[in-house]
């Protein structure tokens, strides 16, 4: 019999509803998996055993009464930059060590309302700044496919947990690729929705104009189901979208016949690993065979996306992270004066990458530099939006690799921040444009590491994005699981 921890959300939902097992059984299976894998992976920062148990028991009561909610009783993990009431939330930073929020973020509270069981909080690069989950004050997360490798980041904990089965699904946040790139590196599906679709209330801000919460799951339908549970206007977030929600899972079975698919020229050559390129090409050919109209599309401004991103995101973060000052919560290092106390707290509480970005952002916003840096970056952002808009006048979706390489070795890029920044080369542009994008696993490279395929769509184009993703998933028929997940699990 399959270990319950390896079920998809859809299969687990059917099992729960048929009475084959209970939500408590499912939680037990996931916690048993975590008990084995955590020592190798460190996907979680906090396992909320008590809270999860209460939620699973409540789900069983509701299931017995015939409650049809799709996520009822499903064990999920949340990235630790999502605020959860009463459960320690640190964003992987020393500066928030021990902080137990007095409130639930909107996504967390919508998931609770959906009956989901929140297993725990997953590791991330501190304040979501990084692409490997190595920049965590609490130690790195490792890739379940090969523990010498990184799981990607910053949502590496969520991706690793889903890949290995210590959660059936998870949520992360994506500012420049932080959901899609770790999904790609762990063989999972990760989606960044249109900016404004999921409320940011309760997401510890990194770069407010780019941050979006999104799902990580093992299949495209699972990711769609997770996303559907959290989208919707929120009066607590002034940037939340207050119009008709796009349909997300309506067209999963519709195939790609007649759809126009654009292959992004700038993401199809230089800087992309040949094995990744070859696998991507193969999927594109199959999409074409399946009836899609495939064309090449150039997005010239994408060349400047990384530079613009590394001005805009640090600028926003320099203000967003100013509130961590030791005055009201979190770490406090005493000083002779209040000013000294604040300075010492921040110097001690933030890790090197966070400090670097705060300094970079502060500089970019300073008088005399603003226009050359921040102002210029905003102009690039506008150019990029125009590029995307004109591309979507010609095609329904754009495709590219998700990550220029498969999972790299732990420590390989930590010494050189710039190389690390290039890990997001394929994903950053959609954040700047505010558009949705999804990563779907399509195979393994020679080293046995997963390769991800990215599908980008215009704002509110989730329906067609998931439609193509589902077809890519069928065509790629990727069924491999990481060794750590399939190794014999010790039975209690």
């Amino acid at each position, binding site marked *: 019999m399959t270990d319950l921890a390896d079920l998809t959300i859809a299969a687990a939902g059917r099992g729960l509803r048929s009475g084959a097992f209970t939500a408590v059984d499912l939680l037990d299976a996931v916690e048993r998996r975590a008990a084995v894998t955590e020592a190798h992976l460190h996907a979680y920062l906090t396992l909320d055993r008590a809270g999860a148990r209460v939620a699973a028991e409540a789900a069983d009561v509701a299931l017995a009464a015939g409650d049809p909610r799709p996520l009822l009783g499903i064990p999920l993990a949340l990235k630790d*930059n*999502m*605020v959860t009431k009463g459960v320690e*939330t640190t*964003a992987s930073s020393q500066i*928030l060590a021990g*902080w137990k*929020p*007095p*409130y639930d*973020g909107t996504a967390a509270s919508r998931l609770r309302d959906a009956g989901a069981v929140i297993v725990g909080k997953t590791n991330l690069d501190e304040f979501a700044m990084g692409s490997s989950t190595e920049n965590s004050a609490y130690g790195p997360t490792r890739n379940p496919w090969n523990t010498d490798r990184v799981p990607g980041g910053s949502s590496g904990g969520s991706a690793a947990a889903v890949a290995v089965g210590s959660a059936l699904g998870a949520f992360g946040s994506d500012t420049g690729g932080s959901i899609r790139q770790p999904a790609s590196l762990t063989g999972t599906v990760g989606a960044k929705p249109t900016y404004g679709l999921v409320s*940011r*209330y*309760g*997401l*510890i*801000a990194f*770069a*407010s*104009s780019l941050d979006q919460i999104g799902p990580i799951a093992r299949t495209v339908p699972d990711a769609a189901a997770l996303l559907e549970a959290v989208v919707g206007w929120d*009066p*607590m*977030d*002034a*940037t939340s979208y207050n119009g008709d929600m796009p349909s997300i899972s309506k067209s999963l079975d519709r195939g790609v016949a007649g759809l126009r698919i654009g292959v992004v020229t700038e993401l199809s050559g230089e800087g992309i690993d040949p094995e990744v390129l070859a696998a991507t090409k193969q999927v594109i050919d199959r999409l074409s065979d399946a009836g899609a109209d495939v064309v090449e599309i150039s997005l010239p401004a994408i060349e400047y996306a990384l530079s613009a991103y590394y001005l805009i995101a640090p*600028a*926003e973060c*320099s*203000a967003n992270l*100013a*509130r*961590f*000052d030791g*005055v*009201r*919560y979190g770490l406090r290092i005493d000083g002779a004066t*209040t*000013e000294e106390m*604040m300075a010492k707290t921040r110097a001690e509480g933030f890790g090197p990458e966070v400090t670097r970005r705060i300094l970079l952002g*502060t500089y970019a*916003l*300073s*008088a005399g530099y*603003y226009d050359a840096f*921040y102002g210029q970056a905003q102009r690039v952002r506008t150019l990029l939006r125009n590029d995307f808009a004109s591309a979507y006048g010609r095609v329904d979706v754009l495709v590219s690799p998700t990550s220029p390489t498969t999972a790299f070795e732990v420590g390989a890029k930590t010494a050189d921040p710039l190389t690390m920044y290039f890990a997001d080369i394929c994903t950053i542009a959609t954040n700047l444009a505010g558009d949705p994008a999804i990563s779907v696993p399509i195979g393994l490279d020679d080293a046995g590491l997963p390769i991800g395929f990215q599908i980008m769509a215009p704002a509110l184009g989730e329906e067609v994005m998931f439609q193509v993703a589902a077809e890519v998933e069928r065509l790629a028929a990727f069924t491999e699981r990481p060794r750590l997940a399939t190794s014999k699990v010790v039975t209690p």
Partner: protein
Amino acid sequence: MTEWEAVIGIETHVELQTKSKMFCGCLVDSGDEPNTAVCPVCLALPGALPVPNKEAIEGILSIGDALECTLIEDSLFYRKNYFYPDLPKNYQISQYTFPLCLDGRLAVDVDGEPTVVGITRVHMEEDTGKSTHIGVSGRIHGANHTLLDFNRAGVPLVEVVSEPDIRSPEQARAYGAELQRVVRTLGVSDARLEEGSMRFDVNVSVRPAGSDILGTRTEVKNVNSLRSMQRAIAYEITRQIEVLESGGSIHLETRHWDEAKGATRSGRTKEGSEDYRYFQDPDLLPLHIDEDWRKRVHARRPELPAAKRARYVALGADRSTADLLADAGDLAALFEAAVSAGADARTIGIWLTGEVVAYLRREDVTIDETGLSADSLVELAGMTGDGDLSATAAKEVLGGVLAGEGTPSQVAEARDLLQISDASTIETEVMAVLDQHPDAIEKIRNGDSKPIGFLVGQVMRATGGKADPRMVQDLIRRKTQA
């Protein structure tokens, strides 16, 4: 000797009395226990986000409309970055380019000398928390700890920035007073200087008269009344002139007004030290104010103090009583009711701003606690107009009415103050007086009119002041003509 001219611009902060704070649902109520009107948003907990308060935006728009500003169609929110323990986010949400309102004006009057002060902008800000330094001195230096109360953090503020159009301390005071009246008339704030719900930062510089180059300015803070603003500016002008005339120069700095010493003292130097790194707040979308919204705000504009004063003058009130009345809500209401019922505006105005105000002060009561109504004012005015009461008697009757002794006619009768206007009675009294003063009659007949007043006085005395003096005078004139 150089003639100097002062150039003054005023930044005014007004705390809006909205139901809830600028960006969260916490109640605006300064009377609460410390840190009870707080939530994740105004405490800047991780993950919390601001959502603009529509009521506050409308309040700001109404001020902009009253100051004849252009209301901006797509207004932007900015972050103003600086670290301070009572500023929870360590940035303040404020406005920079595209504030809510631009380019307005406010007319002020000093001793009948009208000036128009340009309004640069009216924009939104949020208040900070309150620091209390605990230690020997009660000041930040030497304190061993600081207590923070965030009840006020996030309370909506509006900043009204004037052009440097003000030329004297008196004009500055008149501007401050008029702005306070406008804000109160709009009902958006109680604008109390002593409680800090209205605060002035005054920029003062001097230059040789006739020059069009601006001198270096200082920013004077801590002026907690209109009077201290006037004094502080006067002091600062004198100080700057003295510095310049003795060959010194003025530094761009903040100076604090010390009310007790009657002097400003140097605070923070501004030069090069402040870079707020303004940038558009990514948590807040541009605020779209469509034409309908702008029209609605304008349509709701109440009668402003200047218009009200002009109307009172047009009704017949004296300029000075009109000014006083327009400022006094409940008296103005009585005035309007009485005048619209036909009473003479000038008389009513004088009574209300004279006897009535004096009575209220003396007895420390409000108008509602007295026996005075619009009806009694109308009746009283009628009695004086008909000659039933002398002006002096009318004031006495008014006192009785205020004290609750009854209607004017009841009071007049009870106190026996009604004038004798019966012609035959008066004639008898006049004839009696004339009989006693033939010499006076002689003088009058010889063309000297002075004794008329004397004779009137004699008749008034004989009648206990109740005779109608006009009738008496007419009669004496007639009887003394040859």
